């Protein structure tokens, strides 16, 4: 396993973790932009633009792009979050140059008006699809409430209204503001031929014009408050609890992640024993989300409407107890072993390593081999976890419920 890096004169970073024994390779363009970099009028443009990247370039039609990926037998897609847009493909080694040429070309899209209007309908269908997923609806509104007034509160998909009103010129302006090579990192993992990779990247991306594309990173307020979204069509009650957590740049993210595992992993956690094992809730889990300059713990409960109040009380009690006592040594050991085993298994696939290596670079400008990640996980102490959950108070949270109930309790 060997790490390689270079930078093009226009600022585009190229990195790779080369694993000669892998059977395949994965390549991704990581663009540091997402819904947090939008404004009210362009809500959803990052994600819409991600779709438009597949609709053709000067050299290729939309069908050409899809056809070429499929000719290589690639496993490929893209995703957009609050702060990143990633275009990726996994292929067999013989297609390294071709897949790189294709992905690089896609990132200079033609953005044709006709394609724009057609794809707008697909985006509206996607918004409708997520309307039928209560957990997603809850997540989106909980983020909006917890990060009220902060860019991280912006919806990734946008709304029916914002997408309908969006014009091609708005998207072009956004592209010209955000897609500077200084915001782009090209990442390769698996069986990469590094010299050819770096050469191809230079040939395909050197003409991209650089410009300043800074991101606003205002401090977020502490969030807080309680809300209820009553929807009589739903049969289950969904409750989200969100609180502050260490940011992606903070070394305490390892402790934060283990805290979430002890507290709310899907098996063997405090919330599992307190809520799922006795079937008070069907689901009760806690996750840690490291973000650029911010972070969040999020707990989700899914319950019978009649038991939602009880479940919430128990969850709150567990959060408070965890804040006061921290984990036991045995709990921490189990959490570490689960985490170490999970990153190892994920790391065995080039696609699994792609996001890990990519985000290490995007957020922290560092490369950390898998073994070092595991060492950091194993080095976390109970005291460090206690310190994290005291500074980032789990009990000072934003709470939002979605379901048939008119009231929270």
């Amino acid at each position, binding site marked *: 396993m060997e790490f390689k890096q270079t930078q093009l004169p226009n600022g585009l970073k190229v990195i790779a973790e080369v694993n000669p024994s892998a059977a395949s390779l994965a390549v991704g363009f990581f663009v540091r932009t997402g819904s947090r970099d939008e404004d009210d009028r362009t809500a959803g443009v990052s994600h819409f633009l991600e779709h438009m990247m597949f609709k053709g370039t000067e050299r290729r039609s939309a069908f050409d792009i899809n056809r070429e990926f499929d000719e290589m037998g690639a496993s490929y897609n893209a995703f957009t979050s609050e702060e990143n847009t990633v275009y990726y493909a996994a292929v067999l080694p013989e297609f390294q140059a071709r897949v790189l040429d294709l992905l690089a070309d896609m990132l200079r899209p033609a953005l044709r008006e006709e394609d724009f209007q057609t794809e707008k309908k697909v985006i509206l269908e996607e918004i409708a699809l997520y309307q039928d*997923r209560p957990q997603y609806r809850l997540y989106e509104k909980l983020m909006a409430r917890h990060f009220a007034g902060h860019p991280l509160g912006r919806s990734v998909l946008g709304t029916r209204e914002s997408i309908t009103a969006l014009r091609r010129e708005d998207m072009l302006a956004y592209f010209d503001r955000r897609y500077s090579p200084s915001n782009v990192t090209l990442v390769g993992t698996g069986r990469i031929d590094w010299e050819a990779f770096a050469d191809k990247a230079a040939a395909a991306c050197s003409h991209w014009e650089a410009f300043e594309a800074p991101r606003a990173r205002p401090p977020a307020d502490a969030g807080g408050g309680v809300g209820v979204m009553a929807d009589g069509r739903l049969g289950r009650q969904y409750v989200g609890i969100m609180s502050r957590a260490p940011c992606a740049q903070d070394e305490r993210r390892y402790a934060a992640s283990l805290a979430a595992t002890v507290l709310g992993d899907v098996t063997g956690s405090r919330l599992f024993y307190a809520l799922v094992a006795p079937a008070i809730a069907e689901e009760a889990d806690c996750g840690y989300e490291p973000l650029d300059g911010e972070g969040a713990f999020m707990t989700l409960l899914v319950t019978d409407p009649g038991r939602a109040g009880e479940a919430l009380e128990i969850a709150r009690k567990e959060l408070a107890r965890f804040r006061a006592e921290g984990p036991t040594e045995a709990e921490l050991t189990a959490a570490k072993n689960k985490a170490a085993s999970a990153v190892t298994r994920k790391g065995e696939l080039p696609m699994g390593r792609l996001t890990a290596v990519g985000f290490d670079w995007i957020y922290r400008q560092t490369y950390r081999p898998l073994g070092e990640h595991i060492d950091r996980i194993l080095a976390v102490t109970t005291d460090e976890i206690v310190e994290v959950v005291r500074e980032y108070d789990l009990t000072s949270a934003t709470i939002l419920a979605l379901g048939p109930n008119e009231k929270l309790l």
Partner: protein
Amino acid sequence: MAEQFFVHEFDNGLTLLGQRMEQVSSAALTVALPGGASRDPDELAGAASVAAHWLLRGAGGRDTRQLNDALDCLGCRHSESAHAEHLVLSAGLLGMNLSAALAIYADILRRPQLADETFPACRDLVAQDLEGLEDEPMRMCNLLIREKFYPHPLGRSPLGSRATLEAMTADAIRRHLERELTPRGTLMAVAGRFEWPELVDVVAENFGDWTGPGMEAVVPAAPADGVTHITKSTAQVQITLAYPAARIQQEQYYAGRVAQMVLSGGMSSRLFTEVREKRALVYAVIAHYHNIKDHAGMFVYAGTTPERAQQTLEVTVGELRRLTEGVGADELARAKAKLKSALIMQGESTAARADALVGDWYHLGRLRGLEELSAAVEAVTVDDVVAYARAFPAEGFTVLTIGPEPLDTSVLN
């Protein structure tokens, strides 16, 4: 590099399957017990799902917490679920912890506590999952279409019904599990980092003297094909169609898999191109292949807003039928490339390989290597795909829709 496959059949009917993977340090374990949702007695529909929870509620000398903690301590990510024809327990962990985990699985399978006091919660969790389906129309649709398509009870939803769950008792499930927890017909697959002779010894030590009856076969009723609509005020209409496909044991199987790829293999496939790219009718449209021992189907899904649902149905069915008119050489090449590279990439995942070993052995009684699979895919011609489409035409549909209004399905006749 040729795969390193291993098979050991124990006298008690347990089959151990292995694939050693040099380049990894993890191991994946899949245990498939005969039974599953299709072998739940009618009055106990949902039993396998309840059992999946109950088995983890204490085993050997450990109570619920001790048992789960013991697995967690090994860094073992585990899940248990009822499939159509098996109750499946899966685990992902580091290879060095495999022996210790197998000793715990011996307790789970051979010495589960199945205590009265832990039963109601397990039943309630399945009941809650069933209620939750009402809020997730896409999941509901994809689960229920199998129930409609396969002869009863082979496609039965593993979640049972409100009535069977309410009436279910601990005693009834214990009696049912006496037949289900048996080495006879149980497949245990390990893929990843292990030494085979050592693995055989550990399994022999833990499971060698396990005894149990064989499970009798079920006699399925004729499938209840036809059109079902569930009225719901959802944002999108869910459309699922199913029609017969070649079984894995049949000669035309590989032509069928290539046909499925032509329809839905990548973004240049026919359904994606015609339904989404050209007409923007949907975000998601997909055709996938699913099989059980004696039946297989092509399952097609599309989700769209109500005013566009009728057109989506018509365009989708048109594409399914157009396959009989021919396939381009370029389409065929893409479909094959996709299938072959997916095979190689799955070969890097221990979890995917453990599941594949179980699937191969259950359906074919042998393990297929990458070379055999690649050659079989490579041999498929345009004529084979067209012949397949004529032998397994897009007709005799089973249809399930969920949304505000039923659709006009006369186009399917």
